[in-house]
């Protein structure tokens, strides 16, 4: 066991954990942040995505101890139901989910994309999100939600 210090959603957090623990379990079980989800533990589906220093990363694949000095943003760091981020609001507008289990990856993937490319076209959105799996088949709504943000003047 080791003490690990993390900067999550702008706050410093310290946990006692096995240093090999993937970031996902520290976020979910130690810090109570349930936005990132366990989908495969293999980096294949994207449900566990978080931003590390602005880059989207699969939190199931990276040991928590390896990101101690980096800025981590989870889905909770974007907004709440009461005060949603522009991307989250757009997803609601488009009703862009069914079961919603993959949506953490979709929203965080959209955030990473829009931070780098505020006005992506449909092909760029598809390419950027191609490594995120949705089983319910809400892809078209996700694309429309991201377009909605890209076409608005609100900063994502």
């Amino acid at each position, binding site marked *: 066991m080791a003490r690990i210090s993390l900067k999550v959603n702008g706050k410093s957090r310290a946990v006692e954990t096995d240093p090999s623990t993937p970031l996902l*379990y520290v976020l979910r079980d130690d810090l109570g942040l349930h936005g990132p989800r366990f989908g*495969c533990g293999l980096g294949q589906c994207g449900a566990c995505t978080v931003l590390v220093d602005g880059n989207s990363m699969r939190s199931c694949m990276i040991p928590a101890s390896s990101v101690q000095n980096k800025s981590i943003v989870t889905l909770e760091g974007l907004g709440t139901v009461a005060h949603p981020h522009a991307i989250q609001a757009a997803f609601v507008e488009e009703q862009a989910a069914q079961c919603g289990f993959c949506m953490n990856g979709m929203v965080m993937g959209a955030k990473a994309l829009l931070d780098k490319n505020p006005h992506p076209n449909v092909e760029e959105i598809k390419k950027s999100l191609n490594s995120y799996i949705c089983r319910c*088949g809400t892809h078209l709504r996700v694309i429309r939600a991201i377009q909605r943000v890209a076409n608005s003047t609100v900063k994502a």
Partner: protein
Amino acid sequence: METKTISRRDLLKSTGVMIVGFSFFGSAAKVLAQGSGLSVDGMDPTVLDSWLAISKDGTVTVFTGKVELGTGVVTALAQIVAEELDVSFSKVYMDSGDTDTAVDQGVTAAARTIERGGPQLRQASAAARQELLKLASARLDSPVEKLTVTDGVVSVIGSPAKKIAYGDLLGGKKFNIKIVASGVGWDMKVAPEIPSKNYKDYKVVGQSIPRVDLPGKFTGEFVYSQDVTVPGMLHGRSVRPATSLSAPLSIDESSIKNIPGVVRVVHEGNFVGVVAQTEWAAIQAARALKVTWAEPTLKMPSGPDEVFDYLKNTKSFKDNVVTNKGNLDTAFSQAHKKYEATYYWPFQLHGMIGPPCAVADVQGDKATIWTGTQGPFRTRDAIALLLKVPPKNVHLLYREGSGSYGRLESDDVAEDAALMSRAVGKPVRVQWMREDEHAWDPKGPAQYSTVRAGVDAQGNVIAWDYMDRSLPWTESEANPLLASSQMGMKPSGPGFLNGAGGGGQIYTFENQKVLAASIPWVQQGEWPLRTSNLRAPGDLARVFASESSIDEIAADQHVDPLQFRLRYLTSDKRISEILVATAKQAGWTARPAPGLSSSGTKATGRGIAVANRANTMTAAVAEVEVDKTTGEVIVKKITLGHDCGLIVNPNGLKNQIEGNILQGVSRALLEEVQFDSTGQTNLDWNSYPVIRFEQVPEVEIVLTNRPEMQPLGGGEPSIVPITAAIANAIFDATGARVRRVPFTPERVLSAMKA
């Protein structure tokens, strides 16, 4: 959002308690009646209070056995209640899937929830409204006929000052009246004698009300079964062999002694699991634990071909003859030309993105279970049987899991959690790993279908002989779940039939037989090839076969495939109308297939298919591009027509249809469970690919609303014609018939060379 479990008992006893909605209604806290003195008598469907309660502030709490599976059905049910009671939608709170408080309305499945559960809630609401009007009549001293209701406030027509709110009428008290209810589950009829609202007066039903569960799903505030935490909770993982379940001959606990935080290796019967302080410790320990398993008694088939041979050559245990009319032998002997083809459908996964999860807290002879089962009561009863306690001692609280397209392993994982919790005496959270989910997903069954048809000299179909040979659902009500099976429980039947729709019975042929045969499958023990209902069970394969064959005959007769179908779609005008409307929207122009249009290496084509699933009519036009050198198929566009009677929530329905189309394309082009004698071989998303963003087609939807009809299902019918439409489009593009799903480049290329 705080998660708090409050039983209905607490809810009714409590004084001004804040009910923090566990998930469905976001942060909408509901204040219940103060000092109501209500007691619990829930679950008896003949008691109105079992169905709903109205608090002093006018909030309507509905106690329903129906659950949200990600389809938006709970929002739609709330619309139906709001409509019938004449309250605004935001006043309705759905308390869903709690076995201590809900009426058992049967499992949430088969896209029948709106059709069956909807009228139950509608009639219970109509009964409540009738009683409220009776109370108001006395209080306002005005006959019921002179009363009107606006957003839960009853007033006298012409004297709007004379009014009283529902909340004040009941004063937080119970209705205390009996209603008529008969039958059980889906078939339960509730208060059928009470008139319900005329559809012409609908204000809430028919509106695209946004789903109540979605906002929190985009922020992390929604509480899935995977997110349930209870104080003192430990983490468990199940340990199972790679092929069929067998006995653990030895368990070497020293293999995990270096993993800190392991609490206990649980070994009961043939069940093995690991409980640990942390989730990561449980994962590592379950992977590292050395278990020597006995040689399995069940041998896995060498691969899919062996299963198809088995289906072809094995006597059925049940033949479901859907239609059998005329004289096929005579018709075939007189036929001018005969057609015969065989179609193959593989095992496919439900493939939910989040592996199933449950928290169990077993204390003495009582248990509390949180999980995402489609059948809260079914799973409660299974766990009671496993723990050998009466069902009433098990309290199951539904929490949504990852998307449900049929029977999920939420039931199985709940049993795993119950065994582990009982062993350690503490609450245990168990989530399966990805490889568990891929391997132990009760698969959509493999099917082998044959079509024989004959035409007369004028090209009219005079004989149609359809036969589906399908495995049943071995994971059906009569048969034990995984852990129960490992504890020695035996199945009591061969399983449930994989449906019988889609064999061409939509057409009127003079001599016609449609038969769905159920082929016995392994019953004793459990293995990765166990089976269950996968979205629109069996219909995809049957419609693929029947709609490919009708298309083949049309092409051979040089008749436009739409016109050819319409000749025989004479039994129901809804189905021919949706087919025509869909074709029109897709810009269909009459010509025979194949069109063989191509440019360079790319051939393009269009295909059409039509289906009736549980009286919801669907039609699809697929536009594809086929690479003639590689055999790769790209679905460019799907136009989908849908008639499910009265539409309750148009945008919610479109969401379902879009999802069905994309999942349909995925299952047609990509999906097949692979296995050999060592076990299932595709255990992750790379080896079992599903559709991704870059493969998503354009989608156009044609909705037919029939407000004068009852609402029918929308959760699965639209997946049914997709495969056939794509297969027919491939034929139109290339002149080649693909008869085995999925349509991989190799199979398409091989069909083109045949």
